[in-house]
């Protein structure tokens, strides 16, 4: 076979220019435009308005003053409280991401490998929670973790505890519930990321004399790592933007960016500060996603 690049090309005498009829261009525009307008109104415009709002001033009585100031960012970033809020938010995300990945991994691996005739049902069971309102599941967790809840009730009925322990109304409860609520995302991300995994690779490693542990560390884990990364990022991102669960289960103790944004927007009516916090959250998100892309790039190299 002859390789292609070696042959010199005869250059044609005609100017090489892509002719495209105006009609076709109009057609493409017609396809794109309505959806783009919809997304602009429902997504871009709000972000623009919000960014603009973040430079406004919150008057002393709560009035809104149209101006251009960095005051809100100054306030948010010079105040250790908000640094702590940012820290809490990241911590919540890391912890939820990590725990969800650890718990989702065996399930995902199991679902990828199983040949059970119940496979479909088992996948549906793992995913069904995803399709259930987060409000409903948070309610379920309140019932399980509350002072009067199932766990405390059980522990006290069996005499293991004299008084209830605080599972709800604090960070631990929020994390437990969020891990469960977001786990299906991790499972899904992993199942689809485990495409490269197949039993014969592991068997091959096994026949080459690797121990089970070695097979896992050298074959299974590296092959599944991209899926794990994606799952982690997904849960991380979803948990740092979660609101319903921290709000209902946080007991007023869990201060994260999402709850602060909501409080400032609807309780204190400090829209400029709420907007500035949102922009910070957005930037945090942007950095993370960029970081993730760098990471996966490096990983793929």
């Amino acid at each position, binding site marked *: 076979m002859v390789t292609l690049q070696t042959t010199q090309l005869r250059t044609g005498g005609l100017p090489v220019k892509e002719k495209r009829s105006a009609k076709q261009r109009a057609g493409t525009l017609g396809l794109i435009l309505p959806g783009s307008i919809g997304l602009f109104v429902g997504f871009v415009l709000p972000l623009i308005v919000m960014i603009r709002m973040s430079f406004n001033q919150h*008057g*002393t*009585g*709560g*009035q*809104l003053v149209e101006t251009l100031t960095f005051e809100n960012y100054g306030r948010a970033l010079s105040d250790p*409280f908000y640094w*702590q*809020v940012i820290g*809490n938010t990241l911590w919540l995300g890391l912890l939820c991401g990590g725990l969800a990945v650890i718990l989702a991994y065996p399930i995902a691996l199991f679902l990828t490998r199983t040949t059970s005739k119940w496979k479909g049902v088992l996948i549906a069971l793992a995913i069904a929670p995803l399709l259930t309102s987060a409000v409903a599941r948070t309610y379920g967790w*309140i019932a399980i973790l*509350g*002072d*009067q809840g199932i766990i405390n009730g059980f522990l006290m009925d069996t005499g293991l505890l004299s*008084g*209830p322990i*605080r599972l709800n*109304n604090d960070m631990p409860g929020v994390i437990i519930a969020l891990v469960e609520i977001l786990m299906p995302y991790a499972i899904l991300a992993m199942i689809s990321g485990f495409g490269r995994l197949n039993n014969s690779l592991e068997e091959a490693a096994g026949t080459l004399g690797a121990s089970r542990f070695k097979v896992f560390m050298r074959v299974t884990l590296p092959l599944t790592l991209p899926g794990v990364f994606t799952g982690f990022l997904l849960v991380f991102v979803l948990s740092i933007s979660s609101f319903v669960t921290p*709000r*209902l*289960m*946080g*007991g*007023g*103790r869990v*201060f994260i960016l999402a709850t602060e944004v909501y*409080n400032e927007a*609807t*309780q*204190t*009516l*400090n829209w400029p500060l709420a907007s500035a916090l949102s922009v910070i959250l957005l930037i945090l998100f942007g950095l993370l996603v960029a970081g993730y892309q760098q990471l996966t790039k490096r990983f793929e190299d």
Partner: protein
Amino acid sequence: MSTNRRLTRNKRLLTIGASIVAMGTLASCASSGGGDADGQTTITVLGYTAIFEDNFTQAVIEGFEAQHPEYNVEYVPSQNSAEMLGKLRSEASNPTVDVAILDQSVANTGIQEGVFAQLDEAAVPNLANVVDMGLNAEGYGPAMTFDNLVLLVNPEEAPEEISSIQDLWDAPDNSVAIPAAPDIQGIALTALTANNLGADYQEDIQPAIDELALLQPKVTSWDPQPDVYQTVTSGSAQYAVGWNARGQVFSDQSDGRLQVVQPDDGIAFQVNTINMVEGTENAEGAQAFIDYTLSKESQESFSSAMFYAPTVKNAELPEEVQARVADPQDPNIVEIDWIWMADQRDAWTDLWRRTVIGG
């Protein structure tokens, strides 16, 4: 699955999908109809949701409509005062609401922003009966209800009786529910604590904040969900601070699991004002409605239903009700300047988060 079978099924599903959509569209058409055809003028009233809405409708709106058949009141429920102000702000150029009932401090922000209108004394003759502390100096909406901060106890679960705010500091760990600032219950508690420490809350709030921080281990939730009344009734918290009016109502429904205690070391009032919205096309109706809410009859009826203290001098409550509402003449009253407070709420909230809750 063969493509074959899948495709026939798809066709069927597509049909189902289409009919669902068609049904949805029909339903939305049906619901958009309506409107009053009987020549009445509608007065739109914005106020609190849930239990307030129920009682206010029964005790006030129905009475007003009976007395003024030419009017028809539409009540728009809202989660809280801030949300009401947000809505009014957004509609400033074209208000859909005529009258709003909201917390005094939030109302004051609205007044500063020009959301509310001054009342015409002639159109609201009952203004003359409003107690002094209920009147707005510049002629904006007066107080419609007085409420006060109380202690809530679940007598079945609570190890000890309490009678004063200070007793909260002796409560067992993990037993108290306090709605933290920016909720005005937390704000009021701060003022009462300052008062108990012998400090003037307008001068220096730090001692009170430091004192409240000591409550940290006692508190099970700083943001009780559901509200404090349910939290105490269910036993999730044994003690709480809450408002008298709601506390009394829920106490009656609780089979004795919720007890309201008027603290003997300080009564903090909360004021809901009733305001006419600036730019309303229906100023006459709005003021007629406001006047009615300040009438002896309406005040008595609403107080009996929900245990708010009346804001007019001429209201006379039955004794069993009188005993359960705060008395504006009570010597224990710690006067709170909610208008001054409106400017302090953010600062206090910050202190709460940093020091009291230790966020």
